């Protein structure tokens, strides 16, 4: 399986767009890697530690199309979406390290982060629960007659949850502007797709709701991008929700402590050939005038940014224990 086979020439993807997209994908990859394979192992990051390695094309190829007024409800492998919304590596690192200046001020940890100002709902840990919430965010847009949309992110496992069903159905009935991005990475924790459902395409589930659904190669950032364009247009023009299933693979354990022995030998190797960053770089070399040096340079720039941010975050204060009871209710 060669990467370029699945990534044909697309004239519209000019160099500036390629550069932006690549930046976020590389930043997500390297930042997560730094967190998982250094900070977590050094004990600087506590609790769980999830990465979206190999899935970067999905949050990046979609969120790059979001506007300021849109809302996003990312899931636990979508750091790229947060970066695109302007959330900085500093903030993310401080969050992971439980510092007072992290996005949740140390009240929550790791990927359970977001930001109201930048319209990202922090992950709701109960898998699937973000889907009804997305429905409400979108309802408010229709209520005010805006043309904004909601980008909702979830995984294959989430589609087994009742909330997934209730939420998409309500969105469909009320024709709410939501783009559902489903990353089908073939596993939910240790559970493979065939123990999760008796079908292989989650898009088929969406027949239940009378809304459009399409399937794309989730490792091809421009396939995700183009499907999202169609979906966003559909949603912004009042046609209601749109579902995109992105076929991909989780190139890590479920979280840092999981060696993923349950994944059959060879599967990860096979998918590594479809690495979304390598695929994009190949495209850029072939069609957008980039060369290897550009990539090395970019990676260095990203690593420098991360190094600076780690340094900063390590020096941030922990939350003052005296504040533990603050912020449960509004203080008037």
């Amino acid at each position, binding site marked *: 399986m060669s990467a370029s086979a699945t990534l044909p020439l697309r004239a519209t993807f000019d160099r500036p767009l390629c550069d932006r997209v690549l930046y976020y994908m590389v930043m997500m990859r390297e930042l997560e890697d730094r967190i998982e394979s250094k900070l977590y192992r050094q004990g600087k990051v506590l609790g769980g530690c999830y990465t979206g390695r190999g899935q970067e094309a999905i949050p990046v190829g979609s969120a790059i199309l979001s506007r300021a007024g849109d809302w996003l409800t990312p899931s636990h492998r979508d750091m790229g979406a947060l970066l695109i919304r302007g959330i900085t590596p500093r903030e993310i690192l401080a969050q992971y390290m439980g510092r007072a200046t992290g996005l949740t001020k140390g*009240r929550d940890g790791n990927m359970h982060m977001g930001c109201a100002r930048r319209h990202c709902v922090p992950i709701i840990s109960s898998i699937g629960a973000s889907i009804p919430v997305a429905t409400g965010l979108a*309802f*408010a847009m229709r209520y005010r007659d805006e043309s904004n949309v909601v980008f909702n992110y979830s995984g294959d496992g989430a589609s087994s949850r009742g909330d997934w069903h*209730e939420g998409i159905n309500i969105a469909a009935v009320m024709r709410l502007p939501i783009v559902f991005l489903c990353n089908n990475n073939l596993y939910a924790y240790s559970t493979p797709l065939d123990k999760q459902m008796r079908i292989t395409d989650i898009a088929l589930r969406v027949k239940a709701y009378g809304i459009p659904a399409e399937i794309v190669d989730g490792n091809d950032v421009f396939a995700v991008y183009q499907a999202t364009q169609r979906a966003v247009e559909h949603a912004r023009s009042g046609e209601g929700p749109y579902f995109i299933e992105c076929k991909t693979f989780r190139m890590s354990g479920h979280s840092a402590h999981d060696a993923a022995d349950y994944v059959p030998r060879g599967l990860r190797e096979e998918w590594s050939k479809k690495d979304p960053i390598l695929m994009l770089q190949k495209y850029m070399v072939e069609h957008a005038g980039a060369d290897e040096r550009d990539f090395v340079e970019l990676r260095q720039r990203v690593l420098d940014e991360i190094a600076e941010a780690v340094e900063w975050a390590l020096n941030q204060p922990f939350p003052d224990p005296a504040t533990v009871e603050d912020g449960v209710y509004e203080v008037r």
Partner: protein
Amino acid sequence: MPQTTYVEAIRQGIWEEMERDSTVFLMGEDVAVYGGAFKVTKGLLDRFGEMRVVDTPLAESGIVGAGTGAAINGLRPILEMQFADFMACGFDQITNFAAKCRYRWGQSIPMVIRAPAGGNIHGGPFHSQNVEMPYVHTPGLKVVQPATAYDAKGLIKAAIRDNDPVIFLEHKYLYRSVKEQLPTDPFTVPIGKANVHREGSDISIVTYGWMVHVAEEAAERAAAEGISVEVLDLRTLVPLDRQAILATAKKTSKIILLHEDTLTGGLGGELAGIIGEHAFEYLDGPLVRIASPDTPVPFSETLEKAFLPSTDQVLEKTRWLYRY
């Protein structure tokens, strides 16, 4: 002046707040065209239109999640659960997401979840439950249950204006069994303030909801026997009005903690905890709890009557504690 029922008081409160603030909207099963299973929302659709009075699919978790999302994005949802019993279907959304938003990321959730609760209507195990405790025990939620038409109107208005998620429990037996003349001028009843429903000096009954009326009846009968009973109507269960609770405890020194909800893990225990810790020196007798027994709510008349706390039972305990 005509009298206003409890159900009509809630309807008026919602109506006035929807007039006042265009971000307030109502959502739930059968609330629009039908006006709600108990007709609390009758007429609202005609006045406010389909965008603000919304019939939903049959999906409590979906409804709560959608309400929370709408609250995040600038609206003030009022959600109706057709029966409080079915809030259980949205339990994760309420307790794990809505309740924790402010603490986790400073996001306020100005949302009211209204639900008809309580028994004495032959509703059986699935249509009679008092569901307050799991919500009382969830930091981030407020919990309210009015006992009178005045409080019903004043509290629903306060709940709608509140910037935290409020669980608003309406007692379905009270919907049409209590009424009173209401002021014509607008008013609210503050969340977090108990009300001395009846003044007394010998014994305090701390209670809420329908039991306020049961306590009142028992107090009336006790008065005829020369026992002076104070009835404290909590009105708000979270935040509890500790000051009022401790004040009545210190005043009478003999306390009955009464609720319709089942005993073990009910609010009576929490009240005993507060009083037993902070008014211990004032107590002249045991902390008496009266509550429904630890069973599902039975359907049949004879059983439901035996299940629910009664005036006789309250009176008997009152006499016992008085003599203690």
